[in-house]
């Protein structure tokens, strides 16, 4: 008896959700609208895709290997043979840039995704459950946010040691709090919406409401946060690597390349400028895309 009742409730709640899914459809429209109106965002999007492709197909794009050293041709300037010159170990800079893109993009995307998941789950839980859960999660978030992000990253890296997995973990721990805060405030708003109210009245379970009603409605926000978190992660990692606390050599990340390239700033400026330009480009691209999304998704800005 109870089972069927619950089943019924779920069906109704799905129906209610369907009406909400109109939102989803509008979301597609919004994307199309952005594509039409915001050319920079589109260009940025394709630039990001291009970079991802370049990173994935790096081995096919260059005849050299990432760590092939050539001690007799150290610091040679850009030439037909080495389009971006060679570094202090005679390694091809373009090759390292392409392989470095793998690391840097992964470092941008993975922690952003992880912190998004962590932040969203905790944020929804805090917002929806309230009480002690809320207090504990939000105090934790406050503590996290009290750290300047660079500093927190440094302390965590100190505790964990260097290496790419630790960088992932660090950046996740640095970024989750912001996501959690935003999602929590969204949840608080959504909690009082009619359709959630309705779902609650007909007896849909709490978990289900959180999963099927609240989370999907936070998605647009999460998407924007994701696109803006990626460049933040890339910047933080590059700063960490610049201080020698990030990725372990010989794997190239762009930040690390700048770190080692720094002492050749005027003997071989390409060592710094190539990865520096790459970082700027990807960060700009993600920022433009994020701002484009924000423009179409944030009704307050839409008005302007």
């Amino acid at each position: 008896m109870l089972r069927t009742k619950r089943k019924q409730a779920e069906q109704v709640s799905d129906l209610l959700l369907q009406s909400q899914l109109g939102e989803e459809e509008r979301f597609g429209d919004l994307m199309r609208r952005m594509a039409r109106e915001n050319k920079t965002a589109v260009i940025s999007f394709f630039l990001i895709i291009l970079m991802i492709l370049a990173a994935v197909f790096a081995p096919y794009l260059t005849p050299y290997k990432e760590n092939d050293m050539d001690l007799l041709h150290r610091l040679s300037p850009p030439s037909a043979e080495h389009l971006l010159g060679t570094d202090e170990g005679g390694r091809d800079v373009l090759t390292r840039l392409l392989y470095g893109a793998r690391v840097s993009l992964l470092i941008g995307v993975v922690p952003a995704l992880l912190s998004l998941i962590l932040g969203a789950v905790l944020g929804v839980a805090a917002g929806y459950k309230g009480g002690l859960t809320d207090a504990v999660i939000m105090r934790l978030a406050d503590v996290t946010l009290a750290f300047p992000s660079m500093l927190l990253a440094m302390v965590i890296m100190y505790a964990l040691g260097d290496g790419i997995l630790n960088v992932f973990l660090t950046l996740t721990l640095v970024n989750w709090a912001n996501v959690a805060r935003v999602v929590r405030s969204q949840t608080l708003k959504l909690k009082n919406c009619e359709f959630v109210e309705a779902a609650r009245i007909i007896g849909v379970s709490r978990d289900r409401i959180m999963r099927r009603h609240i989370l999907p409605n936070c998605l647009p926000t999460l998407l924007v946060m994701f696109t803006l978190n990626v460049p933040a992660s890339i910047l933080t990692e590059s700063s960490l690597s610049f201080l020698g606390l990030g990725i372990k050599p010989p794997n190239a990340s762009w930040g690390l390349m700048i770190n080692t390239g720094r002492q050749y700033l005027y003997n071989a400026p390409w060592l710094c400028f190539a990865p520096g330009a790459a970082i700027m480009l990807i960060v700009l691209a993600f920022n433009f895309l994020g701002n484009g999304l924000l423009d179409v998704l944030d009704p307050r800005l839409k008005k302007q």
Partner: protein
Amino acid sequence: MMKNNLVRRLVQALIVLAGVTLLIFVMLRIVPGNPVETMMGEHANAETVARMTAEMGLDQPLHIQFFRYISSAVRGDFGTSYSLGKPVSQLIGSAFINTLILALFAALFAWIVGISCGIFSAVRKNRLPDRLFMGFSLLGISLPVFMAAMFLQYVFAFKLKWLPVSGTDSWTGFILPAIALGWNSAGQVAQMTRTTLLETLQEDYIDTARAKGRGPFGILVFHALRNAMLPVLTMMAIQFSGLLSGAVITETVFSINGVGRLMVQAISGRDIPLLQATSLLATSVVILGSLLADCLYSVLDPRLRKGG
């Protein structure tokens, strides 16, 4: 009402500070290895290590160590640096002054440049200067601090020889680091000023002011800016604490003896007392900064002052 609010804020800040202290303390101690061993380096022998471990109280359980740390920290004693062999409070004292000056210069730069660019952009919305400034501020946000720092150092100190490469001997030594550090904030301030100013210029009271015959300049200065600056000022207060604690990279590039560099040094030297104190200082500054921002807001916005 306001007093209550302030007290509540203060209590909240203290809770966060306590949490931060505990977090730092625990985080620094989950690192494997005996700090004494690392401190003694190549010349450690088991006997000396054991003696010094006991001397420093490192053989005690963690919670006892924590309370010991807190009780001496409250008295201003943060222990002795492992790597530099001096009292941490003394090391931080001199470093903090440098960081403070650097942050002040950087904030000055960021605010002056950011606010004026923001105003200019808002007034000339969508025209060339606006696009130029906004492009520039986006660049400011996207350009990693170390790139900006290296670029400035290379061009203005090394190539043009206008300013020193490094050093805190004279105020000129702070100019380049301050610009490098403030660059990012300038971009943020400019964007925020522009947005809030544009929003404010849409407000009804701007029409009222125009209706009573105020000229564009008067409107900007006496009506729009005062309102638009509220959120910007709050951001600036938070930013300032961010600048204070975020000077790590700038200090490294320009070799300035500040808290940030001390921290990097503490990390590479596995210098727990130093790292603990520096990170505690940096977070306290941030907490204090947001507390001040709250206060500032309620002082500047009459709506929050009474009754609100």
